[in-house]
Each structure stands twice: as structure tokens, then as C-alpha cells.
């Protein structure tokens, strides 16, 4: 496992913020309301004291500890766990970054079925227990670059997608792999309401070329920070493709299908001029509404954190993946 780390990414670790500060986060945001009128009184008192009286938070989804081989990369400064699990784009649970954490805690991941089908010799289904037991688990500390020009560093736990694909044994006709998220409007409010779900057509679908899917970097993640995934991060199993924009890394997967042709992908259907099939991180190709030349790395430090850094081609994983696109014009195939 190679993870290249540019020197400019090395931040000072002395400014790590105490994690329990975030416990009061939601109270603060709630108080802010219309022009923050509510905040006047609310925040004058301690948010902690308030939490005791007005704790309306539902039970938190239970994660469990995983056994895995550690990634000993110490060079990347990780995004604190509390930020990783409270800042999510998972429109099935609402379009605000904090919605998934608030709305997904009752999400039921067991039983779960992940079905592999299509152009393969061994179509089969993994049950909930298989997800963490069928393959040896390993930790991978990856950079995650969102198309919205922010990024995180996340210690995922999972297994290479290649292992799963080998077991399914795709035939010679298979050229692409299509992925599908669970469709369950009863559990996912964003699927039940067009307004809450941001106008996206569900179920969420994604796809990779077979050779991209077989790349050793491509991970099926079942956990982060040493524990099983919380629902807002895509429990019980999700894809992680670190050299592509975050929206390619589809969450809560129920179906993987081998195809002869390129599958449709959710954001490309919604806005084809803005989101391509490949979606490789590329500082030279701007999104119509954001420059992609640089990004804000979310770690710690609040508003004053000087965290804008240059975006690297393929999110810094060019050595491992650039060869996949040798004969492709990446400006056209963005």
C-alpha cells in the first residue's frame, strides 16, 4: 500500500481540539434559527447545562469494534472522528451536512444483503456477517476530496473491491461495474420526499470501469476509526475510490452488477454538464460553480485554520492510477 504525502499537507498537530466540544454543536446550531434570534438567550447560558434539560436526541446507532491490520501512515493528519461522522453528503437522509447524523441513527443495517450479479460466473449474495468476515480487513488512511472543494483524511477499514470481484469471477464480456444504494423510503426520508432528497432520482447509482474497480486502491469500506460504519457514513458497506470526487464513493450498497456497457450514474443524470462519469479529481477542470484548483482540508482549528491547499491530480494518487487513463482526454472525460 503506497500513500504519497506531499510536504505541504503536513500540519501542526498541536492544535487538536478536544472532541467533547462537539457534543454541544447541535444545540448551538439549533439556537441559531432565523437570524439567530434564538441564540441570544440560548447561548448566553452553557450549552452543556442545556443539553441535560432538553436532551431530545434519539439513541445513537451502535457501532462495534473491528479486527484489522493497521495502516501505519503517520504523515497524514486525520480529520477528527467527530467531524467525519457529522459532516456528510448523504441526501437520502437530508441535504444539509448535519442532516445524515441527525436522521440516520435508527437506520437498520442488520439483516443486510449485498448481491453480486450480471456478467459473472459466480453471482452470489453477502449477508450482514459476511461483510466483515468474508475477507481480511485492513485500515487505509485516505484523503477524501469532495467535489465541493473541501477534503478530509479518513482512516477507513475494509477490503479491496478486487477481492470481492475475484470471488464473483466476471466473464470476458464484463467491462463495467454498477453499484446501487438501498432503496427504502421508510427508512430514508430523502427518498420519500423530493424536497428532503434534493431532487435526486433514487436509488442512488454509481459505476466504475472494471479496471478501475480492480485497482488495489479501490476499497469496500465497512468501518472507520476502527469501528463499524455509522449510518451517516454509509453503513454497513460503502465504496471508497480515493482518486475520484466523493460522490463516486457510493454508500449503503445493496447491489453490484457486472455490465458490458457504461452504467448511468446519479449526479451525471442530474447535471451532465457538471458531473461526469469519471469524476477523477482534477485541479485543471473546474466545476461550473467551483474552481477545483485548491481545496479546504477539514481537520481542526476553527474559522482561523489556514487550511486551503493545492488540489493534486488524482487527489495525489496519480502514481497508482494515472496509467488507467493513458489514452483518455481527461478534460472531455471529466
Amino acid at each position, binding site marked *: 500500500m503506497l500513500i504519497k504525502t506531499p510536504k505541504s499537507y503536513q500540519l501542526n498537530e498541536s492544535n487538536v*481540539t478536544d472532541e467533547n*466540544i*462537539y457534543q*454541544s*454543536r447541535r444545540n*448551538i*446550531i439549533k439556537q*441559531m434559527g*432565523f*437570524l*439567530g*434570534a434564538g*441564540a*441570544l438567550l440560548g*447561548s448566553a447560558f452553557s450549552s452543556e447545562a442545556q443539553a441535560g434539560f432538553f436532551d431530545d436526541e434519539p439513541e445513537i446507532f451502535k457501532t462495534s469494534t473491528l479486527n484489522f491490520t493497521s495502516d501505519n501512515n503517520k504523515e497524514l493528519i486525520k*480529520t477528527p472522528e*467527530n*467531524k*467525519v461522522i*457529522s*459532516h456528510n453528503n448523504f*441526501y437520502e437522509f437530508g*441535504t444539509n*451536512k*448535519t442532516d445524515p447524523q441527525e436522521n440516520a441513527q435508527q437506520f437498520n443495517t442488520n439483516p443486510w444483503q449485498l448481491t453480486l450479479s450480471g456478467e459473472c460466473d459466480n453471482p452470489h449474495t453477502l449477508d450482514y456477517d459476511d461483510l466483515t468476515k468474508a475477507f481480511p480487513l485492513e485500515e487505509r488512511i485516505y484523503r477524501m476530496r469532495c467535489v*465541493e472543494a*473541501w477534503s478530509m483524511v479518513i482512516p477507513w477499514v475494509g477490503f479491496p473491491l478486487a477481492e470481492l470481484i475475484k470471488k464473483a469471477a466476471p466473464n470476458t464480456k464484463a467491462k463495467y461495474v454498477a453499484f446501487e444504494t438501498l432503496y427504502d423510503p421508510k427508512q430514508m426520508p430523502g427518498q420519500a420526499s423530493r*424536497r428532503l432528497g*434534493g*431532487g*435526486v432520482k433514487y436509488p442512488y447509482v454509481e459505476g466504475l470501469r472494471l479496471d478501475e474497480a480492480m485497482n488495489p486502491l479501490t476499497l469496500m469500506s465497512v468501518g472507520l476509526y476502527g469501528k463499524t460504519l455509522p449510518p451517516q457514513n454509509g453503513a454497513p458497506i460503502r465504496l471508497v475510490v480515493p482518486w475520484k470526487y466523493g460522490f463516486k464513493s457510493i454508500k449503503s450498497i445493496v447491489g453490484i452488477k457486472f455490465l458490458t456497457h457504461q452504467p448511468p450514474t446519479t449526479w451525471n443524470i*442530474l*447535471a451532465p454538464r457538471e458531473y461526469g462519469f469519471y469524476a477523477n479529481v482534477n485541479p485543471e477542470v*473546474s466545476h*461550473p*460553480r*467551483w*474552481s477545483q*484548483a*485548491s481545496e*479546504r482540508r*477539514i481537520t*481542526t*482549528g*476553527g*474559522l*482561523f*485554520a*489556514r*487550511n*486551503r491547499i493545492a488540489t493534486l491530480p488524482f487527489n495525489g494518487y496519480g502514481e497508482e492510477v494515472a496509467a488507467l487513463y493513458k489514452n483518455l482526454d481527461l478534460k472531455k472525460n471529466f
Partner: protein
Amino acid sequence: MALKLKLKTKDKVLWLKVAIHLFSLLPLINLYITAFNDQLGADPVEAVIHFTGVGAFNLLLITLMITPIAQRFKLGYLLKTRRLIGLYAFLYGLFHLFNFLAFEIQFDLHLFFSEIFERPYITVGLAAMLLLVALAVTSISFIKRKMGKTWQNLHNLSYLIVLLVAIHFYWSVKSDVTEPLIYWVVTVFLLRLRIGKFKAWLK
């Protein structure tokens, strides 16, 4: 309520202004204290940008509500709060722009200028901001007096500003347009009330 009715007009205006100061300034102070301490969610930058932007838009819409409400309910003294609210809209807009420059792109001026020219939603937003600067500067009493009739013409630009801001908000969201659409409805409603004025201009 009984107490309120006994208040003199002058006092009513005074208390309204005190309330406007409190409701505008305290949330802003609270916002920056929590953001500086990294207590404003995972990405305080996005939070402060959104809060000040929406705050500015809210205040602009309030300034447009004042005249119709004052006319409908015969509360002429309300007009005396319009300038203060407009100035707070300007201040929130200024913070909004500053948040983008200082915290989002972190004083990368090259990026700042390329963003202004390449992203239509930013172009439109900045245009609205520049017009707001003109209105804020000319709100000073002695400049207002000196301008005479031109002043009203200039300040009619507030209708254009609110339209630009509505476009800016709508274009800036990725896919969930519900909130910008609600703002559009309110904006169009408030401008519709002035249709007579607009028709007169066209003649």
C-alpha cells in the same frame, strides 16, 4: 400591550431601533465566537458564509416589507427604521463577502478575481454588494440632502439588488432549491406590491 399604546412615537422608534441593534448584532457576535472556537459543526467556514448570506437577504426583505406594512396599518413611524435595517443588511453582506475572501479562499487574490469572472453566481452576488455599498454610503444624512431627487432614484436600486441576491442564492445551491425558491416567492411578492411604481417608470 397597554403600556405599548401609551408610548410616544419617538419612544416607539427608539425601542424598535434598540431591538434591531440587538437582533442584528448579537447573532453575529455569537456566530463568530462559536466559529473561532471550532464549535460550529465540522466546517465552520461553510456555516458562517451561509449564515451571513441568508441573514443579509432576510434583512433586505424586511426593508422591503416596511413600506407596505406602514401603509396598510397606518404605522408611519416604521419608516424611520428602514435605514438602520438596510445598513445591517449591508453589514451582513460585507461579512458574507469577507467570510468568502478570508476563510473560504483565504486571501488567494488570484483565485478571488478568477472566481468573480468565471462563476456567474459570484459575479451577480458581488454586483449586488457593490450596489449596496452605494446605498449605504449615500444613507448618510448630509449626503442624502445634497443629492436631492437623485437620492430616491439611486435607492430604487434596492429592487434590483434584491433580485440579484435572489439569483445569487438560487444559482449557488447544488441541487436542493427549496430554500432559494421560497425566497424567490417572497421577493416576487414584495416587488409585485410595487407594480404601480414600475409601470409608471415605463411610461
